[in-house]
Each structure stands twice: as structure tokens, then as C-alpha cells.
């Protein structure tokens, strides 16, 4: 009986890995597709990290805009990252996580700016924080917040 239980545990973990791999990949692909699509769509709205508006512009209105998102890594990727940490080096599975989070947050900020009919967004700050830090069995989920000042030009 004991050995069966042990096998069951291994089987269960494997199932989680497979589910994580399958759905995680699918979700990531879909997310990237939507990111690319929206990035193209909002291309005209210029975003700067400069503190002052480009010279020669007459600004008529300014407003704070923010965008934030919480994304998490899937079970499979977390497992792979765990293995990777034994030897060190690049954690590619986490790289896509933060990349997705940042781009999504900036896109949401742009969406908000477009709702205000803004022409550009300046002084953009992007901030990342881990929300499940210090917890045992913590899953890698991060919160990304992007904020800036939306400007209307004359």
C-alpha cells in the first residue's frame, strides 16, 4: 500500500507539470499575441521617460495615468527554474514573465491615456514588486505598475 501512495504522489506531481506546461505555454502564446497586436495599435501614442515634454510643444492639459498587472509563472516553468538555480545562470522562464508584465502594464497605461484623448505620455516610471515574497512554497508572481503623465498638445 505504501509504495502505491508514493507512486501516486509522483504521478500527481507529473500531472501538475504537464498541465502547467500545456496551459502555461498556450496562455503565454496568446498573451504575447495580444501584446504584439495592441502594441501596434497604440503605436501612435508616444511614450517618453523624459521629465520635460519635447521642446517646441505647447501643452494644454496634463493628467496622471497608471496601468498595473499581476502575472504569475506556471508550475512547469517554476520547476525548471528550480532546477536551473542549482547551477545558476540565466533563468529564461522568469525573463518572459517580467517581460510580459512590463509590456502589459505599459499597454494598460496607454489605454488609459487614450481614453483621455492624450497625445503623449512623459516621465514614465515602471515599478516591479513581488507579491508573494517570503512565503513558503511561494509561486513567482509579480506586480508591475507603470505610471506617467499624459499630455494633450495644442
Amino acid at each position: 500500500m505504501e509504495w502505491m501512495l508514493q507512486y501516486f504522489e509522483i504521478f500527481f506531481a507529473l500531472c501538475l507539470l504537464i498541465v502547467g506546461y500545456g496551459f502555461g505555454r498556450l496562455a503565454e502564446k496568446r498573451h504575447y499575441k495580444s501584446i504584439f497586436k495592441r502594441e501596434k495599435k497604440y503605436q501612435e501614442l508616444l511614450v517618453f521617460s523624459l521629465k520635460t515634454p519635447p521642446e517646441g510643444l505647447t501643452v494644454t492639459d496634463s493628467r496622471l495615468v497608471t496601468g498595473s498587472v499581476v502575472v504569475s509563472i506556471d508550475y512547469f516553468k517554476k520547476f525548471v527554474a528550480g532546477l536551473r538555480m542549482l547551477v545558476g545562470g540565466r533563468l529564461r522562464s522568469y525573463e518572459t514573465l517580467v517581460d510580459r508584465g512590463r509590456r502589459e502594464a505599459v499597454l494598460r497605461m496607454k489605454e488609459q491615456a487614450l481614453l483621455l484623448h492624450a497625445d503623449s505620455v512623459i516621465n514614465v516610471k515602471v515599478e516591479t514588486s513581488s507579491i508573494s515574497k517570503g512565503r513558503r512554497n511561494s509561486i513567482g508572481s509579480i506586480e508591475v505598475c507603470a505610471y506617467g503623465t499624459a499630455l494633450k498638445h495644442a
Partner: protein
Amino acid sequence: MLLSNLEVVPHKKIVRHLGLVQGSTVRAKHAGRDIMAGLKNLVGGELKGYTELLQDAREEATGRMVEQANAIGANAVLNIRYATSSVASGASELFAYGTAVELED
């Protein structure tokens, strides 16, 4: 109330500086959401419940900051910064601060 994370307002003049204003809130997520997020963690992707929660919290922090600015007679808050920190497992603190100023009309 004009909110901006610039140091100056491009189309208006600052008449008076009124000093630092701040607002913060600590939020924990409730168990139901936590369980759902736990399930979602299996497959990865956006955790909508948390996104909403943090957005609400951020709005509240901003609101408190604005309240403070209103109380001292400002009509704009400039150079706004946001900070997030986790104070305990499962709870996070959202913090917003900026400089309250009075702008000319």
C-alpha cells in the same frame, strides 16, 4: 485636483509650494481570491483578482493623498511616486506621495 508625476506643470505656473503629502493603505487578499489565485498559479498568466485588488488599493492611497492635499489648500499634486512593499506574507502596502502645490488659475 491636478495630479502629475512631473516636477512642473508645462502649461501653468506654480504659485505656492505646500510640502509633502502622502497616502498609504495596507491590503490583504481574502481567502476565496487566494484559493483561486493558487489554482491560477498552476497554469500561469494574469491573476485578475490580485490586479483588481492592487488597483483598488492604489486608488485608495492616491485618494488619501489627495484628501491631505485638499486639507492644506492645494489644487495640484506634483512629482507623484508610487511604492509597493509587502509587510507580511499575503499583505502588501501601497504608498503614494507627492508635493502639494498651488497653481495659478
